[in-house]
């Protein structure tokens, strides 16, 4: 061990350190040995000794050392191999032997330059530590270099100066030269001067010649011919003075990008500086606007001509240069704008001829509300008919005609009749009837209200005049219909009047004569009125009469017509007895003849000839109307309105009491519902109404249940699950109860007992505990 440490003492630090540790361990062991020897434990000592001997014996070959008590090891065995051992092991493992060369150690080497170079122990490469840069040194170096440079420059200049001969040197040179040389020099100089002079003279001559020619030619307006003015001609206005100057040109022709353009630009170009500035300003403005590059709708230029678009037109300007509007001056430097004007005119004409396709020129924001003008457009113009409606309060007194007026009215009515008849030549009886009515009405109206009649007459007159204008008959027919409707209204009114008046008469008559057995429908209807009404002005009404009247208006006009005629007949009979009614008589007498005629006709064919339904829906509808399946709504409404005026005289709201809530709120409902004809034969009929309610299982419900059921239905929400179950159980129980016999138990014990008695022929049955079982068995057997 010691020998080894000695041999390698001069090697690496590390080695030394390891050796020292080994030494230390060795010392330690020796110490220990001493210690052990002191303790004089022989076996231990021998052991140690042997161990040491062995170690020493193997020290030459170097062996694995094992120290049990390495410092810090905490009793751990410290294993280490010698280099040879390790190398052997490495050879076994297939590793290269340990590198033991000195150079591998990192060791500073002192060069002769004094620089420290290091050799990397791993890579065996020499390296040296680069010193840090000294900034001050660098600056000094720089300064020094500058100084050197300056010096060098100075030297160079000095050398240059040396080469240049000073005047003194020259003189000295010329002195040294021969006189001949000097003379030659002089001569040369003189000759050169002469030549220059000659050339100058020649030049002058040429120049003068040019000048002469130029002076004879005077620059005038005609010289401007063919010059190009690089501005839009619209910029120049007549009577305005603009100074144009020659535009700058490239000295070398066809330079750069304008190679092609310049070929034709031989002529001078005139420009105005101010105009150029303006153009530039306009262009800058355009650029500032940041227009989108691509505008798909920009198909036409400002003149309305179609633009031929090439691809990526936005780059055209940059590629080919700006395209400037220009024009050439004609002879005498004048530009003729008449051509332009002509072209413009042509363009305008062309444009005028073109069809404008933009229909939506005025785009408006759609508003939710109409403007007043639109409202006026939307509103139908008020018809004059309305005037007619206003004063409808006819009184019986109004019916008194003025003798001189009747004539006039007659003629007028005839006129109107004409207008009516004109469009349809083949008219049915009905129309005739209408006309007659119309006539009749006219008279009445004339007696009552002159102004009104006037207005209607006027209307009809206008109609006549306008007939020529109407292109189609449809319009005329429409008007006719309207007129007819009006007529109906008026007729209704007057009829009411007349009937009321007649009723009065009849009342009187009935008092006198009671033989009026042939009572008519109408009489029956109006009996109540007769009874109640003692004085003419008051009108009383009960619900029945109201109902009847409501229904009555729905019946056909013909019916009423007939009624009227009947009443009139009666009237005639009474006439002789009644002197008071003369006025009325007068009024009616005119009509009577006509009415009679009409009646006759009606009697001839009571049933209206039935339209054939083979002509489609139209005819079917007609039939329906005729038969009364379809009510005429308009007539209905008008009739009501007309009546209300007469009826509403002494009629207050208090009198009215509602029997039904429907009557109160849905008064309009009954207009279209209910039968159209009175049930005459069922007059005394009082229906016995009984409402039965059944639930979905067919159980009859009492009032309360029915209410519950209906309210559930009404609210769309039934009872809960529990409730329904409860109800069902109840039902079941009730059913069971119904099925159960009242005399027996559910298990029929009574019956069995009786049978047992019968079998045993005993009036009793023994019920004992012991025998109970048997009994029960027997019972069960049975």
């Amino acid at each position, binding site marked *: 061990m010691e020998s080894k440490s000695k041999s390698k003492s001069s090697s690496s630090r*590390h080695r030394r*350190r*390891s050796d020292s540790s080994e030494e230390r361990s060795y010392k330690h062991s020796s110490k220990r040995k001493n210690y052990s020897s002191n303790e004089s434990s022989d076996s231990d000592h021998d052991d140690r000794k042997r161990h040491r001997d062995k170690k020493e014996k193997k020290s030459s070959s170097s062996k*694995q050392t094992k120290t049990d008590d*390495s410092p810090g*090891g*905490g*009793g*751990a*065995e*410290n*294993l*280490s*191999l010698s*280099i040879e051992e*390790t190398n052997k*092991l*490495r050879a*076994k*493992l297939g*590793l*290269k032997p*340990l*590198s*033991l060369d000195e150079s*591998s150690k990192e060791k500073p080497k002192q060069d002769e330059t004094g620089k420290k170079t290091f050799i990397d*122990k*791993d890579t065996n490469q020499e390296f040296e530590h680069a010193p840090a840069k000294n900034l001050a040194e660098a600056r000094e170096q720089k300064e020094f270099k500058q100084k050197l440079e300056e010096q060098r420059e100075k030297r160079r200049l000095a050398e240059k100066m040396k080469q240049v001969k000073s005047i003194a040197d020259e003189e000295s040179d010329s002195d040294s030269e021969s006189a001949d040389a000097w003379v030659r020099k002089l001569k040369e100089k003189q000759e050169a001067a002469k030549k220059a002079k000659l050339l100058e003279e020649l030049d002058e001559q040429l120049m003068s010649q040019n000048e002469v020619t130029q002076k004879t030619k005077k620059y005038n307006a005609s010289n401007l011919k063919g010059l190009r003015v690089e501005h839009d001609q619209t910029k120049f206005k007549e009577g305005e003075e603009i100074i144009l100057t020659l535009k700058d040109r490239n000295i070398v022709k066809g330079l750069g990008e304008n190679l092609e353009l310049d070929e034709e630009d031989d002529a001078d170009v005139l420009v105005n500086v101010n105009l150029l500035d303006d153009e530039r300003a306009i262009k800058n403005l355009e650029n500032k606007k940041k227009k989108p590059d691509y505008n798909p709708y920009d198909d036409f230029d400002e003149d309305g001509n179609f633009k031929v678009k090439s691809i990526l037109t936005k780059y055209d300007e940059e590629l080919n240069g700006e395209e400037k509007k220009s024009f050439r001056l004609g002879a005498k430097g004048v530009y003729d704008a008449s051509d332009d004007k002509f072209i413009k005119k042509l363009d305008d004409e062309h444009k005028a001829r073109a069809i404008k396709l933009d229909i939506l020129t005025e785009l408006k924001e759609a508003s939710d509300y109409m403007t007043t003008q639109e409202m006026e457009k939307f509103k139908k113009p008020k018809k004059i008919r309305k005037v007619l409606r206003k004063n409808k309060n006819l009184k019986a007194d109004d019916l008194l005609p003025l003798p001189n007026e009747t004539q006039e009215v007659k003629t007028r009515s005839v006129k109107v009749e004409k207008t009516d008849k004109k469009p349809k030549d083949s008219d049915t009886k009905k129309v005739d009837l209408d006309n007659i009515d119309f006539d009749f009405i006219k008279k009445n109206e004339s007696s009552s209200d002159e102004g009104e009649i006037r207005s209607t007459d006027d209307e009809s007159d206008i109609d006549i005049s306008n007939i020529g204008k109407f292109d189609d008959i449809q319009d005329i027919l429409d008007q006719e219909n309207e007129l007819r409707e009006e007529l109906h209204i008026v007729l209704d009114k007057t009829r009411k009047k007349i009937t009321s008046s007649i009723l009065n008469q009849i009342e009187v008559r009935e008092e006198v004569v009671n033989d009026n057995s042939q009572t008519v429908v109408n009489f029956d209807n109006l009996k109540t009125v007769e009874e109640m009404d003692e004085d003419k002005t008051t009108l009383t009404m009960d619900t029945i009469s109201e109902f009847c009247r409501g229904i009555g208006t729905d019946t056909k006009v013909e019916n009423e017509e007939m009624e009227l005629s009947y009443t009139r007949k009666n009237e005639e009979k009474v006439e002789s007895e009644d002197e008071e009614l003369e006025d009325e008589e007068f009024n009616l007498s005119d009509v009577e003849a006509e009415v009679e005629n009409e009646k006759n006709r009606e009697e001839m064919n009571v049933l209206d000839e039935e339209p054939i339904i083979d002509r489609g829906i139209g005819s079917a509808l007609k039939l329906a109307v005729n038969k009364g399946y379809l009510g005429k709504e308009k007539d209905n409404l008008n009739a009501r309105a007309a009546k209300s005026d007469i009826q509403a005289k002494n009629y207050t709201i208090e009198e009215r009491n509602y029997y039904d809530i429907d009557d109160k709120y849905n008064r309009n409902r009954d207009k279209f519902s209910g039968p159209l004809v009175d049930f005459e034969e069922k007059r005394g009929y009082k229906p016995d109404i009984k409402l039965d309610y059944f639930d979905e299982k067919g159980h009859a419900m009492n009032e309360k249940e029915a209410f519950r059921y209906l309210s559930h239905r009404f609210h769309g929400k039934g009872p809960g699950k529990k409730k329904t179950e409860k109800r069902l159980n109840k039902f079941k129980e009730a059913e069971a109860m119904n099925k159960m016999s009242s005399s027996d138990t559910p298990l029929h014990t009574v019956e069995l007992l009786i049978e047992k008695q019968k079998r045993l022929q005993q009036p009793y049955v023994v019920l004992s505990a012991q025998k109970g079982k048997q009994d029960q068995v027997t019972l069960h057997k049975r």
Partner: protein
Amino acid sequence: MIEVTCNDRLGKKVRVKCNPDDTVGDLKKLIAAQTGTNWERIVLKKWYTIFKDHVTLADYEIHDGMNLELYYQ
């Protein structure tokens, strides 16, 4: 040549001589040969870095006389 001390703190402390350009795997083999364990079960650590087999000691900057932690897996 460097000498590295590997200590599992369970009673084994190995000083191994090796080259700096040996891999950790080689070192493990050497340790295994000296201690008599399977080299694949050896884990070498320095603090929390587990040395990987294919990297050389120089790359891990393992120098002479360094102590490595020896673990078994």
